């Protein structure tokens, strides 16, 4: 099998070709640079559609697998270049390749300086993210995991706001700190189980060792998600990052964490996952409510959206650790949903920031009258984010909460019912802070004269938002294709988790 021209290699590394092309374009030709990056990312998206076409949804296992020896030292170190996808990672790759061109396109006028490096970093970031989702070798996974940090570090540190260096370093150090434990765990696994391959390792991790390994992996992922109370880096990173950086940060990078939980903590350590599930569910529920309460009084709209991610990702975590089909499928869908809705919210915030150079809620009010189209599109995204039925967020949240309610067994144990009930309170709170944000920005009279002559969205901004809105409606009304793709893979995982539950008894 030809590793170099395999579909997954192409999807992962195609942006590198764009980077090469960008290197030969002079810095002054900004539009050429922009077009090169956009076209590269669009082609990558098309390649990922080819990948989708080659994927067989009925097969629960890893597909489009490529594997070649990479680093082999003696008999204990067998690190392979090993890639493959199942339903869940397929959807997340698609999310990444779908959001990247949108994010790049949205930077058209926002980024006017050092366009060349910006685009290079952005494409490299895409390589890192896709690489994380398709890696089946734990060492390779770790390489991509760390690699994806670097471009984001520069995107925040160079093109960010006032406090960009502080935010960039904090972002980097926090994620690094968590990853170290994971690296140790990976090395332990590789040497003790005798392989770095995820598929070879499945079901072979001794139950006695799972507890510590679970914690080591969870440390890396929980910071990335972020699980409450490890969210302190998130508002800084979001507030300082450029718009497109925030879109990718919220849209994809946070999902690296939840994906890690799904793939490794649930997949490799099912017994430990069972045991830790209640603890994680408690953290998730606290995150849901805490994130919502803290979002409400924020004065900076970008910070409000950032904190809302803590709440939304809490739902994803709760669904994953419901350990049943409804919870996990809902969680995977909610990862996509959060990428779409929160990504769109950050784009929306960026649009007003470009016009007003402020994100203070107090500076706005009555914008719907001045910018009617902007107001309407924002409203739809707001409603999607607060889980209105008919839009995407509801389908994911409902499945998660239903799964969480029934997590304890047939009728739902006492504990799981409480988690689901408290998490459902988060749905009320979502309406509280999202509608408050909408009112502060768009309703009431225009009282600040600086808002009076604002231009409504231009064609480029509409083009950026429309694809997101289409998928928002699509998932809300007809999510069947998405569930269809992930159902067999998740089903396989769930039955493994059930076997583990039996083993524990």
């Amino acid at each position, binding site marked *: 099998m030809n590793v170099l021209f395999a579909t997954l290699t192409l999807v992962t590394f195609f942006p590198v070709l764009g980077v090469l092309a960008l290197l030969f374009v002079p810095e002054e030709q900004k539009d050429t640079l922009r077009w090169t990056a956009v076209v590269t990312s669009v082609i990558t998206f098309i390649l990922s559609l080819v990948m989708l076409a080659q994927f067989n949804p009925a097969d629960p296992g890893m597909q489009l697998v490529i594997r070649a020896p990479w680093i082999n030292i003696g008999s204990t170190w067998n690190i392979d270049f090993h890639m493959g996808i199942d339903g869940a990672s397929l959807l997340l790759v698609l999310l990444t390749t779908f959001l990247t061109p949108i994010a790049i396109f949205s930077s058209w006028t926002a980024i006017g300086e*050092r366009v060349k490096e910006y685009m290079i970093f952005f494409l490299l970031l895409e390589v890192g993210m896709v690489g994380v989702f398709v890696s089946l070798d734990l060492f390779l996974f770790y390489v991509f995991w760390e690699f994806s940090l670097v471009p984001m570090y*520069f995107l925040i540190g160079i093109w960010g706001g006032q406090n960009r260096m502080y935010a960039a370093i904090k972002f980097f150090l926090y994620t690094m700190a968590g990853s170290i434990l994971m690296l140790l765990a990976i090395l332990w696994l590789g040497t003790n189980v005798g392989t770095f391959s995820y598929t070879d390792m499945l079901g072979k991790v001794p139950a006695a060792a799972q507890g510590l390994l679970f914690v080591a992996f969870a440390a890396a992922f929980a910071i990335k998600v972020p699980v409450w109370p490890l969210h302190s880096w998130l508002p800084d990173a979001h507030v300082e990052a450029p718009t497109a950086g925030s879109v990718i940060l919220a849209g994809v990078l946070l999902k690296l964490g939840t994906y890690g939980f799904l793939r490794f903590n649930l997949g490799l350590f099912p017994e430990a996952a069972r045991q830790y599930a209640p603890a994680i569910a408690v953290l998730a529920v606290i995150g849901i409510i805490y994130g919502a309460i803290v979002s409400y009084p924020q004065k900076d709209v970008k910070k409000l959206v950032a904190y809302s991610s803590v709440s939304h990702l809490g739902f994803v975590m709760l669904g994953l650790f419901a350990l049943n089909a409804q919870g996990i499928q809902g969680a995977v869908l909610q990862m996509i949903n959060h990428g779409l809705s929160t990504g769109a919210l950050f784009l929306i915030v960026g649009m007003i920031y470009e016009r007003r150079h402020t994100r203070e809620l107090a500076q706005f009010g009555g914008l719907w009258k001045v910018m009617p189209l902007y107001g309407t599109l924002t409203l739809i995204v707001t*409603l999607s984010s607060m889980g209105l039925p008919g839009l995407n967020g509801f389908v994911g949240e409902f499945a998660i909460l239903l799964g969480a309610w029934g997590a304890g067994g047939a009728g739902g144990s006492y504990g799981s019912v409480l988690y689901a009930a408290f998490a459902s309170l988060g749905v009320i709170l979502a309406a509280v802070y999202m509608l408050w944000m909408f009112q502060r920005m768009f309703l009431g009279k225009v009282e600040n004269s600086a808002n009076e002559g604002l231009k409504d969205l231009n064609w480029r901004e509409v083009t950026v938002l429309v694809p997101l809105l289409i998928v928002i409606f699509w998932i809300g009304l007809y999510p069947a294709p998405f569930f269809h793709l992930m159902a067999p893979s998740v*089903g396989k995982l769930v039955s493994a988790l059930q076997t583990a539950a039996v083993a524990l008894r």
Partner: protein
Amino acid sequence: MFTLIPLIIAFPLLGLLINVVAGKRIGDPWAGIIASLAAGAAFVIAVLQLVGLATTGFEPQVVKLADWIVIGQLSVPWAFQIDTLSVTMMLLVTGVGALIHVYAIGYMKGDERFHRFFVYLNLFIASMLVLVSGDNYLMLFVGWEGVGLCSYLLIGFWFDRGEGGVGNARAGRKAFVVNRVGDFGFVLAMFLIFWAAKSLTFTDVFKFFEEHGAAVAPLATAITLFMMLGAAGKSAQIPLFIWLPDAMAGPTPVSALIHAATMVTAGIYMIVRSNVIFSFAPASQMTVALIGAATAFVAGSIALGQFDIKRVLAYSTISQLGFMIAAAGMGAYVAAMFHLLTHAFFKALLFLSSGSVIHGMEHGRHALAAEGHGGGGHGSHTPIPPHAPAHDAPTFDAQDMRNMGNLRKHMPTTFWVYVIGSLALAGVVPFAGFWSKDEILTSAWTMGTWNGWVVFGLLLVAAFFTAFYMGRQVFMVFFGSERTEPAKHAHESPKVMLYPLIALAVLSVVGGALNLPTFIPGGEALGRWIEHTVEVHPIEFDGGVALISTVVALFAIGLSYLVYGRRPMTTMADPLEKSLGGLFTFLHGKWYVDELYQAVILRPFEDLSRFAAYALDWDLWHNVVHDTVIGGGFRRLAGFTAGFVDKGIVDRFFDGLGGFVRQAASYLRRLQTGYVRNYALAVLVGVLAILSLFFFLK
């Protein structure tokens, strides 16, 4: 015929799409006409369903459109249930809905966002139809939240008006959030249902309870109580009724359609639909009946002390919804549905008529302004669109009944339909409200238990309040002499508004025929129709109850004449204020429920969230713990170590952690000097390294 059912939602959606795309261009009145046609077409589909049921022996039909959410055991389709209950609601929603669409063409004339109003109205019709036609709880919930969204949008339709410019926006938000509290109950009810019955489809769920009902009685109680929380939100019952009066900030057609005739009855529909589950939960039924009766009483009393013409009707609506909820709680499902229908007729009529009054008053005010001797000499001669904020006289309130008087002279048609609506609401024979209210009272009367008597007593007093405040309103608005200049210049509304009023007035007179007592030929029609879907316990007509309720209504009307009619008001003070004193203030202050919520829930929440966000999360967690303790501590430790330990070790240590700061900074500094080529070169080398690795792998 049944396969046409998806069209009932497709038509309003089509109307909506046309207006979204082209509404602005086609403008006033065409956007309204298209929307009205869409609603009318949906009504035709509803009639066809009625015919279909009548010709196929009233067997419930299910028409599946597509799968929606399928995960493991969870399988929720987009599917329609056509039975006598859902078709009743479809006819109501599309029929009354279409009339209100037509009325709104006149009412919203000249509004700068005319087409958008009709987009929302069509969206509402579509959502409401999803609510009543779905074959499962989740679709009901989709419609449930969908109508909540429309309510939010339409309450805040004039989003830059109201107190401080944000009053309307705040009212919309309040409605949505309070409803979400109810939805929380609904969602938990669905979780319980699903994990018990492994389905959310009505027929499966009800079959489960019919088979296992007695064994799972506590479950049924829990489910139904959570449902009641949902119903309390949507149908504005204690303790969640507080949003509905504020919802009157929306344009009046909205108040009639959403906040009186259709959306607020969704809670009653849900309870009637779930009758099988309720039948295994007597404790819940009793709770529901008592909540309904108490709401009828409390809201009725508040209506006595209001001056805003729409606010009186709003509290009246809450009170009447209490009647329906009480009936549903007592298992008198036919009576509940009967009152739901008649109330839709006469309350829509009253709201639209009050809209006509407000319209007339505002035109009176604008006429004055145009003549130049009103409103402090603005003297603008350009025509002012209706319902525009009162620039000329900011203190003048066109909805305050104290500003009206003698309007029967200026608006004769509106006056007559208003009187018909009032008599129907007050429950005077033979108007529609008499028959339906009488059935509810009779159900309570015949229960024979202590809670039956409590319900009966509360409802009877509420009925007294109803007749009294309607009498008060009619005398204050239409009789006596004009108390302000605009009232003198008020004039009748255009025909496009009056025709729907006349249609609704006719329904308010004859609506009782839907379910006359059995001793009249053709009686129990609604009962025999609903019976095909819901288990019905017929209620025998009771002459005694009918006599009591009639006497109470007439007595209350007479009393209102003595207070407001015989010696008409001339000042702004309500005569009742003198006789009732502090009690009147208490009623006028709406039992201070809003203030209670403000103190007990809202302010503590605001304080908590501010504390959590600023003090806890930012100052403590972010600044002190993370930046000062962890970050600073590390920096100090690193500095300390550097002084004592060999520099090489420290450096290596720094590479991994803290020293990255300096490294990265210097790296960035180099980038900032402009030598980007250096960096690009590095990247290129890296990329080539990766690529060459692949070639080796081959």
